[in-house]
């Protein structure tokens, strides 16, 4: 509990220091909004050309997109310290973290909380709301819970990927890009319904990097398409659980990385 209080104190300080540069902060928020908007333009172009993808309309795809990007924006905000971890090592900030009587995870999460990612979050939200209105979704308690569950699960899954990415940098900073591509490629892949993919790729997204579990199944339940695709309904509900599990697992791997660091000092 005490650690959570400390975490929020970190967050408060981080936000305060970002607000020191108001103009540049606002620019960054707008920037992030526009960047994601431009990315979304690509999806729009494809639907303009092809009309639909495997029976999914643009609006339905937009729902997937919205959920994934809201989740990922939250991840980018609160795991920034892990995302820029190689820099922490290079500047010696990680050594400083090791010199403090707190867990490394808490301190790295507290290192930076990027609220400018709210730009992406807003864009995701706009797309999600637009899609929900166009699709005329009736927000029952169940569907609302599924939505939140999916966002939470997605966030923890992406966060886990970012932690793994940081862990890898204990061994090789240069190969970081690979994991980075899994994270960003994963986001790219998950913004479409996974049923459009070939079975082998779908399996990766269900079992190895369980993006589908945290995003696809709940979204299908929200769309009311579960019967159509023969998935058991409960799969939509385990999203937060799967996401959290993945995150905790990545924290275990992280500990191995820290041990490696303190024994090589590289």
């Amino acid at each position, binding site marked *: 509990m005490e650690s959570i209080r400390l975490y929020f104190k970190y967050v408060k300080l981080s936000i305060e220091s970002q607000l020191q*540069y108001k103009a*540049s902060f606002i*620019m*960054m928020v*707008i*920037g*992030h909004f*526009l*960047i994601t908007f*431009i*990315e979304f*333009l*690509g999806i729009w*172009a*494809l639907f*303009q*050309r*092809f*009309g*639909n*993808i*495997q*029976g999914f309309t643009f609006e339905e795809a937009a729902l997937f997109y919205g959920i994934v990007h809201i989740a990922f924006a939250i991840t980018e905000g609160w795991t920034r310290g892990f995302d820029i971890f190689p820099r922490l090592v290079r500047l010696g900030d990680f050594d400083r973290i090791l010199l403090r009587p707190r867990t490394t995870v808490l301190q790295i999460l507290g290192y930076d909380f990027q609220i400018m990612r709210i730009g992406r979050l807003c864009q995701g939200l706009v797309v999600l709301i637009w899609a929900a209105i166009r699709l005329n979704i009736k927000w029952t308690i169940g569907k609302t819970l599924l939505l939140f569950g999916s966002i939470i699960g997605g966030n923890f899954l992406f966060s886990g990927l970012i932690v793994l990415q940081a862990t890898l940098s204990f061994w*090789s900073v*240069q*190969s*970081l*890009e*690979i994991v*980075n*591509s*899994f994270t*960003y*490629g994963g986001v*790219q*892949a998950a913004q*479409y319904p996974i049923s*459009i*993919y*070939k079975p082998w*790729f779908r399996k990766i997204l269900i079992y190895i990097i369980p993006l589908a579990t945290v995003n696809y199944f709940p979204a299908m339940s929200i769309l009311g398409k579960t019967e159509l695709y023969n998935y058991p309904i409960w799969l939509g509900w385990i999203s937060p659980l799967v996401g959290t599990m993945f995150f905790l697992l990545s924290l275990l791997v992280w500990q191995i990385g820290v041990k490696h660091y303190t024994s090589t000092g590289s």
Partner: protein
Amino acid sequence: MKPFISIIKIRFNLMLQYRVAAFAGGVTQFFFGMVMIMVLYGFYNSSSGEIPIDYKVAVTYIWIGQAMLGMLPWNGDREIQDLIRTGNVTYELVRPMNLYNYWFARAFALRTAPTLLKSIPLFIVVLLLPKDYSMELPLNMLSFIGWIVTTFGALLISCTITNIINITTLYSISGDGIQRLLSSIVTLFSGMIVPLPLFPDKLKQILNYLPFSGLVDIPARFFTGEIPFYQLFKYFLFQCIWALIIYILGQWILNRKIKDLIVQGG
């Protein structure tokens, strides 16, 4: 000319040393390419209408784009930007050569060395993939020549845009936001993410006249034979004109800024 050649040589050498980074970059681009192709596969399988380019052409187009990613002006020259951030750029002004051309030479090396290193293995791998994902070689030698020539044109445009990104750092130190915005515009409007022929027709007409189409779209369309060889002169001229315009623009902005710097005393 001689100092520029030696700059290019030194940079080239330096970049070749980052073998792991190059490998990682190759894997990343492979992964991204696969995700995109998977998405396109889904789209092509669900449309019965008339599509401007065939699936196989689109796949080849995507791979060309991925292989050439390193050549795209999606970021600035990190060292130059660090020089600007730390204020050490004043030392650069002392060098007995045109600063813009010096940066241009560096950009040239930055855009070619890693690309060569990444693209050749990537080409080999993607040629050997199962036929749903594989790249196809040009039907005749002329398409290949057209591709080589327009790739050189793309390189010229890329270096001039890279320089523009470097120069924007002079104007706003935390130019991170503008840079990322520019990079997402470049990746989308060049055809990297969605092949330009697949864009809605009206938008496509505008995009065809922007310099970004010269980066990926034109070379890829020569490679796939979508543009016949006899039009090579016209398209190459188009690239050169844009490169010249951006070159002059960059020189002009930089010179103005240098004057300011000298007046303010750095």
